[in-house]
């Protein structure tokens, strides 16, 4: 092997090369872990069945039910027929093809991107795919983790490989120390606002710098989760002691000599000194404010201390037109202070922000406080395990005392495939990842926020940060 300096992403790529592509054909990469859920898999299994192909490696595949699952009354039959059909199809396919499944009611059920890391299946230096764009979450471990489409799901099921075209690399350097009340979610919203929803296209992002190194694994997952909202193929953070400590002792983490061999390898993964990125972006953590979106794509975000922008603020004609449309859809007037925007619902959940640290952060803000009149708050843990952990810490009681709904695990209102939807025209502060038109229900209006902002907003009724609460009830 030559010793040319390489980036983290290049190292993981090279170590999974089964066949090097020639003459413009893609490389064939081995896939270490394939996560499956009920929405993007039925047609893939259908394809296998039609072609008479088996699943090559059931032992590298795991399924959970998350997108359609109800978060109330989970012991009752699912009322929506199509939701039920998809879930039943997954159960049938898992049984037929010998795949491990965690169904609704199972203690390891939950959002697929919460369950993988929780079980210790997500590790540094592996390749992870799932028919879900937020697979980028797993990049927080230094894994190369990519969302794929249903044809690719079928391909991975059949071959445990994926033909992939080479990517470019982009360093996202975040240096400095976050101020109190500013979190990983604010970093990633600021990054997307800076580079745009297409800024990462063709790239694997690597989040670097002192502010990233200081983050917990769960915070790193929040950041990597939203890489796709910048259009990136994947997002990664180099593994370090924080990664190893998080992983050690988890059910599927390596043990004994395997653990030692793994750690030795994992320590070789960080980007070499002198390695070249195709692009670099810099963000100052010291001056970052809580960040929120005003528009209908995740790049349309501003500091919470700022005002709703005017279309005239954008020089690019497409951005200007997009802003006009977004303001109309969101029913917002340029110049309005972001903090004056009143919400109807606060949603704490999704693969972006539904882990135990997210629930702890929000609970610490609302504890002993009163919810704003007329505001509904839903808390949806990312997994059954997160829910149990929160209950063992008494967080459920904090949420219930506050008047929030304490629900069962799933994707829930992030995309409203289950009954958890906003009514037309309703406005939400949401810890999820997409503020697209109609994402949380037909006509729904979404402001993406951090768990801390979500909690403070539930208290004041308008978009707020914990700093706004001083002196409040």
């Amino acid at each position, binding site marked *: 092997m030559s010793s040319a300096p390489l980036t983290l992403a290049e190292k993981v790529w090279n170590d999974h090369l*089964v*066949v090097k*592509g020639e*003459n*413009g054909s*893609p490389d*064939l990469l*081995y896939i*270490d*872990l394939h996560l499956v859920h009920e*929405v*993007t898999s039925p*047609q893939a299994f259908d*394809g296998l069945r039609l*072609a008479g192909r088996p699943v090559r490696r059931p*032992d*590298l*595949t795991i399924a959970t039910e998350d997108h359609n699952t109800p978060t109330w009354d989970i012991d009752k039959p699912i009322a*929506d027929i*199509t939701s039920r059909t*998809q879930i039943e199809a997954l159960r049938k396919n898992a049984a037929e093809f010998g795949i*491990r499944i965690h169904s609704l009611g199972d*203690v*390891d059920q939950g959002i697929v991107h919460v369950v993988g890391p929780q079980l*210790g299946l*997500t*590790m540094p230096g*592996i390749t992870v795919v799932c*028919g879900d*764009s937020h697979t980028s979450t797993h990049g927080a471990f230094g894994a190369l983790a990519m*969302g*794929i*489409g*249903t*044809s*690719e799901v079928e*391909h991975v099921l*059949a*071959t445990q*490989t994926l*033909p992939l075209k080479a990517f470019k690399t982009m360093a996202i350097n975040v240096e400095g120390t976050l101020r109190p009340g500013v979190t990983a979610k604010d970093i990633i919203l600021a990054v997307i606002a800076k580079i745009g*929803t*297409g800024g990462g*296209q063709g790239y694997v992002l690597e989040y670097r710098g002192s502010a990233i190194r200081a983050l917990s694994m769960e915070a790193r997952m929040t950041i990597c989760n939203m890489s796709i909202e910048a*259009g990136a193929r994947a997002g990664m953070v180099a593994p370090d002691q924080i990664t190893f400590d998080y992983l050690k002792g988890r*059910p*599927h983490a*390596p043990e004994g000599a395997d653990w030692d*061999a*793994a750690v030795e390898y994992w320590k070789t993964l960080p980007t070499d000194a002198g390695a070249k990125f195709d692009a670099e972006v810099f963000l100052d953590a010291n001056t970052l404010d809580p960040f929120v979106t005003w528009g209908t*794509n995740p790049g349309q975000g501003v500091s919470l201390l700022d005002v709703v922008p005017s279309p005239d603020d954008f020089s690019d004609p*497409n951005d200007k037109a*997009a802003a006009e449309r977004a303001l109309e859809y969101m029913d917002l007037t340029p110049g309005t202070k972001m903090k004056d925007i009143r919400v109807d619902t606060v949603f704490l959940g999704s693969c972006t922000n539904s882990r135990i640290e997210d629930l702890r952060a929000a609970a610490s803000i609302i504890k002993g406080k009163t919810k704003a009149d007329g505001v509904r708050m839903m808390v949806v843990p990312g997994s059954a395990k997160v829910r149990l952990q929160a209950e063992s810490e008494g967080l459920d009681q904090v949420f219930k005392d506050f008047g929030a709904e304490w629900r069962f695990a799933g994707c829930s209102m992030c*995309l409203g495939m289950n009954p958890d939807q906003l009514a037309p025209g309703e406005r939400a502060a949401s810890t999820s990842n*997409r503020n*697209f*038109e*109609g*994402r949380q229900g*037909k006509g729904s209006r979404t402001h993406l926020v951090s768990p801390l902002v979500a909690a403070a907003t539930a208290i004041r009724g308008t978009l707020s940060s914990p700093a706004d609460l001083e002196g409040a009830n």
Partner: protein
Amino acid sequence: MEKFETYTGVGVPLRRSNVDTDQIIPAVYLKRITKTGFEDALFAAWRNDPEFILNQDAYRNGSVLFAGPDFGTGSSREHAVWALRDYGFKAVFSSKFADIFRGNSGKQGLVTGIISDADIEKIWQALEANPGLEATVDLVAKTVAVADIRVEFEIDEYTRWRLLEGLDDIGLTLRDEQSITDFEAKREAWRPKTLPAKGA
């Protein structure tokens, strides 16, 4: 998959940027478990608007789409491609596509060609001046033509070859099955395994 060489059909000017996959097909349609029949779901929210382009008679049978930049962003749902395909679209042109959407398209025989915003604008104007005008997509020559406008489009060579040959993905990979088996023999013991199940 059918071979794609040239195709001629009604051009549709979609004057919108950032057409994300939630707009192409809302999440509610993802609950189906079949691989076809998504034509009713395409742009479902927009189609409630009688003024929407596909609700206009001249464009109802459209099959070549010309859209603003950043087409197909957002969710990885392949249903977005199925919806376009089932509606009858054979090709989409934009100055910029989301990667996952573009990958998904190539596998379903939907051509995604990149042309400049300036060329898109010219074609939009031509189509709007003469609704129902046809566009001719020539994948061999990598050109798209509308009336007297003829521009080259970008598409990566591998996807183009696959589309021209109408090749199935899995069959192609399984020609390398021995290499996969060899790779698996060297796979380190620490790498994850979901079975036997541990947890709870």
